[in-house]
């Protein structure tokens, strides 16, 4: 059977340290009030954290690419839902 991961303990701890630093960065950026750049950075940091967890803790980086594609299909449809609802919810709802 093909195992998901082949990394060392120090590798996993390094990933964890990066995640901890990223949490600190998010909290700091969250204290910058009403800064659109901060919002962008907060979600960029969140996405970096998500990619690290998915790739190295969940083991997606070792899985065949079609597993990732299978999950991305869901994300794609969520994106379509999001874009399709923007006119109704953001600009029309309640106005």
């Amino acid at each position, binding site marked *: *059977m*093909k*195992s*998901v*991961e*082949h*990394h*060392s*303990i120090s590798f*996993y*701890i390094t*990933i*964890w340290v990066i*995640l*901890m630093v990223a*949490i600190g960065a*998010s*909290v700091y*950026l*969250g204290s910058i*009030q*009403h*800064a*659109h750049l*901060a*919002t962008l950075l*907060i*979600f960029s940091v*969140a996405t970096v*954290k*998500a990619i690290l*967890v*998915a790739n*190295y*803790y*969940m*083991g997606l980086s070792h*899985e*065949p690419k*079609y*597993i990732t594609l*299978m*999950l991305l*299909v*869901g*994300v794609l*449809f*969520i*994106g379509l*839902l*999001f874009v399709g*609802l*923007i006119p109704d*919810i*953001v600009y029309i*709802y*309640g106005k």
Partner: protein
Amino acid sequence: MSSSSILNTNPTHEVEQTTCLNVPNHRWGMWWFLGGEVAVFGGILAVFILFRLRNPEWAQEAAHTLTWVGSVNTVILLTSSLTMILAHHFVTGGGAQGLTLEQRASKGALFILLTNLLGISFVSLKIYGYTHEWHAGYTPERSLFWGFYYFMTGLHALHLIAGLVANSVVWVNLMKKRNLQRVESVGIYWHFVDLVWIYLFPLLYLEVSSGG
């Protein structure tokens, strides 16, 4: 005899598992399940972000959530992901090489136990946060933001509690030195619950600007 029944009765976990396209069936099952979960949480997050864009004043509402609780819980959950991957590392991953079945199972059980203790800490702190916010008047009736807040974090907490139950079952399996491959399945699920929280935390606990 099916592959799964072989695994259930063979305590050594040394049998070859059924695979499809070079991926073991138990991992296929978990990835398919998580594909559905992506739709569930992705849909909720998408609708929340849409309403957040519609209501810039929600930044002030988010200021009343306990940021320190969210931050500490993020640290707890990401640390539990580390202990979970270490459980997998020792049971079926690279760290399992050179270890006896007993050593693999006992190390795995230890790290699963640590993962569950961290998960229980997360839920306990979440309950503390809920209690504090509820008594301060921030109930779901107050505004749509708080309705989303309790629904999204509550649904996430239910998933985490389900993970705690699954981890406990696997812990019992490890103590009996059976079904060691299950660590991999519950691990993937646990990391996914962690991944969802990574997005819930900035959306609900940080006063991010909506751009609206």
